[in-house]
């Protein structure tokens, strides 16, 4: 296997979980998330000779988000979210898992762009300026969509005490 391929394999194995989880946060669908991560990695591999010298993870993340954002522009969009799980109580691992599932369901109540902003800001820890660049929108739009997204999440949040979960 060429050296570049070895490097790509290592990169893909390391980046896989984070990419899939990001896609899951953006879609609430495990299968779509894995498909999106596979697609992003395939496109990265297609440009690997160039990308490997840059920030490969940022490149792949950008492809992933744009790929899913493109999907949102199509007629079939979000899945219905009528079955929002009960709000979890803080506690052990099971509680944490329940809470995470609940949070993902809460994300489904956000508009697609709001959701992308929240995931890029709080999952990938990007600055507002970087989110704006990534999504091709203004920093002002990032701020307003982020604020609206958090407000919607807040409606579904009932934390008993800060840091009580997980």
């Amino acid at each position, binding site marked *: 296997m060429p050296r570049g391929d070895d490097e790509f394999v290592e990169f893909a194995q390391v980046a896989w979980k984070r990419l899939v989880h990001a896609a899951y946060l953006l879609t609430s669908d495990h299968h779509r998330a894995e498909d999106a991560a*596979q697609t992003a990695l*395939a496109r990265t591999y297609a440009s690997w000779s160039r990308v490997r010298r840059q920030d490969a993870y940022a490149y792949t993340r950008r492809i992933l988000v744009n790929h899913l954002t493109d999907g949102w522009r199509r007629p079939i969009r979000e899945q219905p979210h009528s079955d929002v799980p009960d709000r979890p109580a803080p506690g052990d691992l099971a509680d944490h898992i329940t809470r995470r599932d609940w949070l993902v369901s809460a994300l489904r109540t956000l508009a697609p762009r709001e959701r992308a902003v929240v995931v890029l800001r709080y999952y990938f820890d990007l600055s507002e300026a970087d989110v704006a660049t990534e999504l091709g929108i203004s920093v002002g739009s990032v701020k307003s969509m982020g604020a609206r997204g958090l407000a919607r999440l807040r409606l579904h949040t009932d934390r008993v005490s800060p840091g009580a979960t997980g």
Partner: protein
Amino acid sequence: MNEHDLIRHDLQADADLPYGAPDLDAIMRTGRGLRRRRTATAVSAAALVLVTVTGVALTIDRPTAGNGTVTPVADAPSVVTTTPESPPPTPEPTRATAAPIPEQNFRTGLQLDGGGELVMRVHAVEHPQLPQTRFGIAACRLDSGGATQVLIVTNETDVSDVAPGFHAIEAPMNVKDTLVPEFGYYAGPAERITGVVPGAGTVEAGTAVAKVAGTMIVLFWFDPAVTGPEPVADLRALDENGKDLPGGDTRAGRG
């Protein structure tokens, strides 16, 4: 911990995720196909404005295996060049030769399910990011009126285009209502190219021999009526004594 920290904490808590492992074979196969397609698209786009007629098609060294005599198609040969998408970030090796590669076309005798006859083409490739690649190949359709239509173009992207072994293999793929056969080329003195198809056993590819950049290459294609839509397994190149030749990259790309 403020609200932002709590959301960040919840979103990033992914240690127990049930996700499986990436399908690296599929990722790399798809990526390889995209890379070839991207290069080929660049070549095709540039060809619209930078075609230079340089000469006639070369002659054929020997007939194909099982598909009758191969003859050059009499359309205008050309050499194409491309402009780079972006300059490479680091210096790349220089090309082995700057000699232009004349276009060569080979009739295969294989009738495509979407109509017309499969024609294999060798054409020049010049791309700054592929310093070891001077030519590529294409699967084309020759219609009853004598016109050729390019269906899939592909080329080597990783190593020298004439390194001994298989290169630029494309899996069967539906293009323009036609199931284009698995095809590619072998650099070296291959007498036969074979593969294994589940349920059909070992099958032999049709072949045509060309001389490109001073090296013998063997274009090959499998009959899709035999292989179906999946790439053949256990691809082998055999010399005139039936001995295996070096395999090289036997992985088929798609897309």
